[in-house]
C-alpha cells in the first residue's frame, strides 16, 4: 500500500491528552473527536491538515492514557499514517487494532515535506529532500491483524496466532 502526503511535525512525548483532550471524551463519535484532534498541542492542526497527510514525530508518540479516541481522532481527521522515532505501547496496539498505519523511523522531517510510504516494501521516501529510509516489516502476527482490517475481524476469522 502506497501512502503519500505532507508531513506535519511534532516533537518527543506527544501524549494522548494533547492529541484529544479529556474534556472531549464525553463522546465516542469519531467525527466529533476528530474536530478537536491535536487541539492542545497545535490549535492550527485542523486548518492545515489535508486528507492523506502524515504526522511525523519524535520519541514515545502517544504516551499517557489508553484512550483509543486518540488514534481514532487522528485517523478520522484524514491522517494516512503516523511516523515516529518510537511509539508508546498502548497507542501502538490501538493503532494496529483500528487499522491506522504507524511506522517507526529514525528520520528527521520538516513541516510540509512530501512523504511517500510504501507499507509493503517497508520504505519511506522524503520527496522534498530526496532521502530514503527503510523500516522493518511488522511481525507476522500483527501483519495478520492489519491484513484482516483490524483486530475484531482477525479474531472473528480465527486465524490469529
Amino acid at each position, binding site marked *: 500500500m502506497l501512502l503519500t502526503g505532507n508531513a506535519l511535525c511534532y516533537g518527543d512525548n506527544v501524549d494522548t491528552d494533547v492529541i484529544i483532550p479529556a474534556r472531549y471524551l464525553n463522546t465516542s463519535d469519531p467525527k466529533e473527536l476528530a474536530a478537536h484532534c491535536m487541539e492542545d498541542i497545535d490549535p492550527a492542526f485542523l486548518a492545515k491538515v489535508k486528507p492523506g497527510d502524515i504526522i511525523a514525530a519524535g520519541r*514515545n508518540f502517544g*504516551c499517557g492514557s489508553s484512550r483509543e479516541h486518540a488514534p481514532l481522532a487522528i485517523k478520522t481527521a484524514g491522517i494516512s499514517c503516523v511516523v515516529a522515532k518510537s511509539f508508546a505501547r498502548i497507542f501502538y496496539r490501538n493503532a494496529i487494532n483500528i487499522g491506522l498505519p504507524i511506522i517507526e523511523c529514525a528520520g528527521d522531517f520538516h513541516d510540509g515535506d512530501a512523504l511517500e510510504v510504501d507499507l509493503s516494501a517497508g520504505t519511506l521516501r522524503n520527496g522534498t529532500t530526496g532521502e530514503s529510509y527503510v523500516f522493518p516489516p511488522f511481525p507476522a502476527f500483527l501483519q495478520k491483524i492489519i491484513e484482516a482490517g483490524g*483486530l475484531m475481524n482477525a479474531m472473528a476469522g480465527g486465524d490469529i496466532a
Partner: protein
Amino acid sequence: MPMTMTQKILAAHCGRDALAAGEMILADIDLVLGNDITSPVAINEFTKAGCECVFDCNRIALVMDHFTPNKDIKAAEQTKKVREFAGDKGITNFFDVGEMGVEHALLPEKGMVTAGDLVIGADSHTCTYGALGAFSSGVGSTDMAAAMAYGKVWLRVPAAINVRLTGKLRRHVSGKDVILHLIRLIGVDGALYQSLEFSGEGVAALSMDDRLCICNMAIEAGAKNGIFPVDDQTLAFLREHGAKEPRVYAADPDAAYERTIEIDLSALVSVVAFPHLPENGRTFEEIGEVRIDQVVVGSCTNGRISDLREAAEILRGRKVKKGVRALIIPATQTIWLQAVREGLMEVFIAAGCAVSTPTCGPCLGGHMGILAKGERCVSTTNRNFVGRMGDPQSEVYLASPAVAAASAVMGRIASPDMLDA
C-alpha cells in the same frame, strides 16, 4: 529457560512452558476492565463486529468513574450506553454511582484480582494490580471488545528491568516518592515495552498501598506492567479482600534483565514532578517558591485510606491557606466510610477542604476542580501533561499526599518539614 515473573504468568496463560522476550502470544485473560470513557468505544466495536455474547459475564468489570456522577448530558449518554450493555449481557461486575470507586482502587478492594492473574483493562493505569503479583496492563477499547467477546488478548512478551529495593522509607516519604524518583531516573519512555519487576529486601518494608501506588505509575515510565513479588503482606491482603486462591509465581534467580536499578529506600526524600512530564522530578533542594491555587488529594494513585491518613495527619489543627482550593477525593465508597469512622473527614472539613464523592474528576480534567489559565495545582494524581487538569496553560505538580497537604497549608509547594511543629 529462565524467566521473569511476568513471563511465567504469561506462559501459564497461553499454555506454554517457556516464553522469551519478543514473542507474540494470544493469551487467556482472567479479567477485563473498562470505564465510562473507554467502554462505549469498546461496545461500538463489539456491536459493529456482530458479537452477541460476552465470553464470561463474571469476568468483565465496568466501572463508571471518570465523568461520574455524570458531568453533562453527553457523559450521561455514555454511562447509559454502558449500563444498558451491562444489563443486556448480564455483566455482574457493573459499578455505578453509589457503589463505584476509582477503578484501580476498587478492583483490589473488591477482591477481583488475585496473584497470578492476567488482567487487561481499557485504561492505562490497569498496571496497578502488579502490586498483587498479577500481570496487568492497559490496552485500548478494541482490545477490550475482543477480550469481552473471546476472553483473549494479543501480547508481545516483554523483557524486564529489575528494580532492586533496599532499606525502609523515612517518615512522610511514600510509594509516590519511590515511583517519581524512578521515573526521574529512567524517563517517561525508560521502560518502553518492558516490565518493571521490583525485588529485594526493601519490598517487605513497603505497605500494599505503597506498592499499588508504585505499580500504578509504571505506565508513566512507558512500562507494559509493574510487578511485585508475592509475600505475606500480599497474601494477607488477598485473604482480607476475599480474592480467589492466589497462584504464586516468582522470577527465576537467573532470569535475564535488560538492566538492574538499585534504590535505597532509606535515602529517598520527597519528590515533586514539575510540568509537563512525570519525569521532571525535583527534590525540595531544587524547588524554589512556587505559589499554588489548588491541591488535589485523590485518584487511583493516592486516594486510598493510608493517603487520606497521611494528609489528615498534616492538616489536623491547621487551615488551608486563604486563596487555595483543597479537594479531597476518597477513591472508593469503602475508603470514604473508613475515613468518616476514623474522624478524618472532620479534620478535612475543619481545615477548609472540599470533600467529594469518589470520581476521577479533576485527575483527567474532567470535572470537579478544573484549572483556569495560568493556575497551578499540586496533585497526588499521576499525570501532569499540558492541559491535563484544565486550560493548556495551567500547571500540574505531582506529589505525595504529605506534600500535597503541606502545600495546601502553605499556599506554595511545601514539604511537611516546612510546617511549624
